[in-house]
């Protein structure tokens, strides 16, 4: 009997390396695409000198590269988080925002604007910081409420998420209407998801957090596999359910909160990329996590590039592009690989 299909460390490393190569290629190509023409020669020239007025270099280094790195970080974070949410909730419709991250971030952002604070935190505006705190706090609240319905009760968790999301969304609408500040409208725009160039320190730390989080999730990937069979079976197979759920949710919420605080709410990536990757590579989380992260990063880099050029010089919010590109791609994958998908039976 052949063990051919089996996952080994070597096969995974090969797949991940190839994936990273594709991602880097995409990032390189996309950094030369945009509403302004940037020539490779001018960029290379600019790397040597200081203070020369070289707009190509400026655009490349100060605008394009940060944006592309940001898109990669956010895409990887959302995709991995989506994988974990779907695994823990055993629900194909789960995405990273399902447990309150979206409304929590929105509420945080609106409160930040209304309170009129103006300081920065390593170059992050108060909106981002409050959005981050709001996102994490809301997940904690949903987790707490969900636990009231029973220790590992998945449906309870989902319902708590829905209730909190609805309530907070209503709060956001209310605050938006009664707030005197005009800035509140800008918050709504920010929340729609956009890639703005950040300074390199923020990108570096963000990348560290996200990649670190993905590695933590990779460590518990075998436990996530076992959890697909239900808590009881997983426990019989030696998985510490409480610890696994706590780590998985905690890390997923954390990296989603980072993604949201960096770029607002970019939809669709966390829902579609896990499904697409799973359809092609199978449901084993040891493969699914790193590969989804890579696919998510590539996808968002490409989507952001589209967002930048399709209606240039204006820009579409990235969330629009992810939905428009993501939908048909997902459909094609689904039709092609539908044999592998059990929940379609």
């Amino acid at each position, binding site marked *: *009997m052949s*063990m051919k*299909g*089996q*996952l*080994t*460390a070597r096969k995974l490393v090969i797949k991940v390396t190839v994936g990273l190569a594709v991602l880097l290629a995409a990032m390189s190509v996309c950094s030369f695409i945009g509403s302004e023409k940037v020539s490779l020669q001018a960029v290379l020239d600019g790397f040597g000198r200081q203070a020369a007025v070289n707009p190509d270099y400026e655009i490349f280094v100060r605008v394009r590269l940060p944006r592309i790195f940001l898109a990669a970080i956010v895409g990887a974070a959302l995709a991995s988080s989506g994988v974990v949410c*779907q695994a823990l909730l*055993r*629900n*194909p419709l789960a995405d990273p925002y399902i447990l309150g991250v979206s409304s929590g971030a929105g509420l945080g952002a609106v409160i930040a604007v209304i309170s009129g604070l103006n300081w920065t935190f390593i170059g992050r505006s108060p909106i981002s910081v409050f959005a981050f705190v709001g996102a994490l706090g809301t997940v904690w609240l949903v987790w707490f409420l969900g636990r009231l319905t029973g220790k590992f009760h998945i449906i309870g968790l989902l319902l708590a998420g829905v209730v909190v999301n609805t309530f907070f969304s209503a709060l956001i609408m209310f605050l938006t209407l009664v707030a005197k500040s005009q800035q509140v409208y800008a918050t709504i725009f920010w929340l729609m998801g956009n890639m703005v160039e950040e300074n390199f320190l923020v990108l570096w730390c963000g990348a560290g957090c996200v990649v670190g989080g993905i590695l933590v999730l*990779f*460590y518990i*990937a*075998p*436990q996530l*596999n*076992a959890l*697909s*069979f*239900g808590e*009881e*079976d997983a*426990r*019989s*197979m*030696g*998985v*510490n*359910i409480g610890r696994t759920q706590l780590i998985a949710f905690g890390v997923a919420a954390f990296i989603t909160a980072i993604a949201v605080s960096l770029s607002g709410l970019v939809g669709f990536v966390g829902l579609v990329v896990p499904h697409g990757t*799973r359809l092609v590579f*199978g*449901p*084993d989380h*040891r493969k699914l996590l790193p590969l989804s992260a890579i696919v998510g990063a590539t996808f968002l880099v490409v989507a952001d590039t589209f967002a930048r050029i399709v209606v240039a010089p204006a820009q579409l919010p990235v969330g629009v592009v992810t939905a428009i590109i993501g939908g048909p791609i997902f459909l094609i994958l689904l039709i092609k690989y539908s044999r*592998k*998908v*059990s*929940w379609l*039976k």
Partner: protein
Amino acid sequence: MSWCLGGKNGDSKMSGIIEVEGLSFGYTPQSTVLKDVSFEVMPGTFLAIAGPNGAGKSTLLNLLCGMLSPRLGSIKIDGTAVESYRTEALAKKVAVVRQEFIPVFGFPVIDTVMMARTPYYSPLGFESRLDREIVAEALEATDTARFALRPLACLSAGERQRVFIARALAQNTPILLLDEPTNFLDLKHQVGIYDLLKTTQLKKGKTLVAVTHDINLAAQYCDAALLLGIDNGCQYGSAKDVFSIEQIEKVFGVKVFAGKIGQEKFFIPLGKFAKDGPQIAAKHYS
């Protein structure tokens, strides 16, 4: 009545691999499902747990594998109390086969069985050659190797049940707990599963505990039996002794026709419309 016959083996120097003493449990403080249950299972025994619905069979199984905590009494696996085992350590002693479960995202058969080896993975989460060999063996033993790469959802119920048994086998534990392993299976598969279980018991010396509704097959294959009653009574002993017509009629509350063909005992419940029913019963009792 709360007594348990035939609990402990008085003269054995070997202690049981499963020791249950004075076990009581209820899901709510007011109700009691199990009362003062005591028995000891020797290594290498095939124990059947039978009884009417609601007697607490599945509950007992869940208590044995540590999913539930007893209200009173103790359960020891291999000399140590169940509560004091860490989850991973317990998984190396006890494997459980429950009602089948199809996960939302389709894993193929071989991955499903391989998951049993999770406690034995390398730190980075990969299986070793030994793990692969054990899984291959388990697949061969359950005759599921031929659809190793097929997703679980594409199998019949019988084939799926065998896969879950293969998974439990791959876990390589001395104890195997099964919750109604032949539910929903046709005759051929019922016998097939029991054959497989018996072979495992004999070849590998595993201790098997199966909750079952099928008294006839239990009588055919099992060494020991635990009969649980709704009134919290329990009977423990060898299958021969426990499966007697008096016990069965009392515990299940139904008239039964007991017969023997060669060495095989069988029991058929008699309802109002059984042909020749009342006469046969009367004849038997006379």
